[in-house]
């Protein structure tokens, strides 16, 4: 127990040291701790290091202007992506026919991949967001932009917002934010692959909630099976992948999670080898 506490103190202390010195200092402290007699002295040794500041700060350039610019760029990118998704849907997926359904389905499937790629690219160019907004709140920031847009858009257009739309959008926001924050926490513990799996679940769950008052979430026939010789599953899948909100949700959650991962990578986690008794 004491050893674990001391180890945590030393790890916390090492995190504040410049990255190039962390491993070396941690090894040195552990060696001293190992040779130190007495529990109280060990605790005092580790706690003193944990409470102190290193001789020089970690080489992180704090540039508030850059972080603010990245946050603004993030806002623009998310809003732009939302508008683009709606635009593409209007142009490509409002009408279906026997001749067009095949390329529409493939284009929509390709759109899912593009949404993932764009999410990763956007995270690369707006890394300063997590300097301004805590990583745990990053999904709320990113999804919150779309939530605000979706609720304010009817007011701008001059038609009344329905209660069902508010419920669906709110459930979408809550599920996406909570699950994406959970994914970030899982990634922090080193299980990055599992964290991406949680993001995948977050996409499905939040998309379901976004369509609670829609036939898609009831798994009813969307009428697309007529293009596939009555095959319900194929028709249903095409109906789902051609939904602009699915593409947008994938983009948002991949973007948010990539930002969190980049932030965590920047923090350069200190490894925790076991301390010999």
């Amino acid at each position, binding site marked *: 127990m004491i050893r674990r506490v001391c180890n945590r103190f030393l790890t916390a202390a090492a995190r504040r040291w410049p990255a190039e*010195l962390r491993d070396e200092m941690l*090894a040195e402290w552990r*060696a001293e701790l190992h*040779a130190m007699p007495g529990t109280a002295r060990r605790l005092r040794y580790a706690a*003193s290091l944990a409470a102190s500041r290193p*001789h020089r700060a970690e080489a992180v350039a704090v540039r508030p202007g850059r972080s603010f610019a990245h946050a603004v760029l993030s806002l623009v990118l998310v809003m732009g992506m939302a508008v683009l998704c709606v635009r593409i849907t209007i142009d490509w997926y409002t009408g279906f026919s026997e001749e067009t359904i095949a390329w529409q389905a493939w284009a929509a499937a390709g759109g899912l991949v593009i949404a993932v790629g764009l999410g990763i690219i956007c995270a690369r160019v707006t890394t300063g967001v997590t300097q301004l907004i805590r990583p745990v709140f990053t999904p709320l920031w990113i999804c919150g932009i779309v939530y605000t847009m979706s609720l304010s858009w009817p007011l701008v257009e001059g038609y009344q917002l329905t209660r069902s739309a508010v419920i669906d959008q709110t459930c979408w926001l809550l599920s996406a934010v909570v699950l994406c924050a959970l994914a970030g926490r899982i990634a922090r513990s080193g299980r990055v692959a599992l964290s991406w799996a949680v993001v995948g679940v977050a996409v499905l769950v939040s998309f379901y909630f976004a369509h609670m008052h829609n036939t898609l979430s009831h798994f009813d026939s969307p009428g697309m099976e007529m293009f596939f010789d009555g095959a319900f599953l194929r028709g249903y899948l095409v109906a789902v992948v051609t939904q602009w909100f699915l593409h947008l949700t994938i983009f948002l959650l991949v973007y948010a999670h990539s930002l969190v991962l980049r932030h965590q990578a920047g923090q350069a986690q200190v490894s925790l080898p076991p301390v*010999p008794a």
Partner: protein
Amino acid sequence: MNAELRMTVPVARVLAALVADPTGDHYGMALMQASDLPSGTLYPILARLTEAGWLDKRWEEVDPSEAGRPARAYYRLTPAALPVARQRLAELHERTRPASAHTVTKEATA
């Protein structure tokens, strides 16, 4: 070596401990005891002195699996730093001597 090191009381204590045995290898715990400084103060000073070229840091040559303990890091004043450290400690000692004693010494030498 950067001779323009800011000489604070904790730095002087660490240097005094190192100067007391200039050829010896000093490890963290011994320096803590000799300088009466907590670990959180000592290690940033050691790192600063090492980066400024005043200290050589080397790792104990021991096989941790054989010895049953991890290798320790040792510090030693560099040959170039030793005379500078002595001089700076002497200057600090001179400046911090009580005024009356300083005056008496001056009068005695006059």
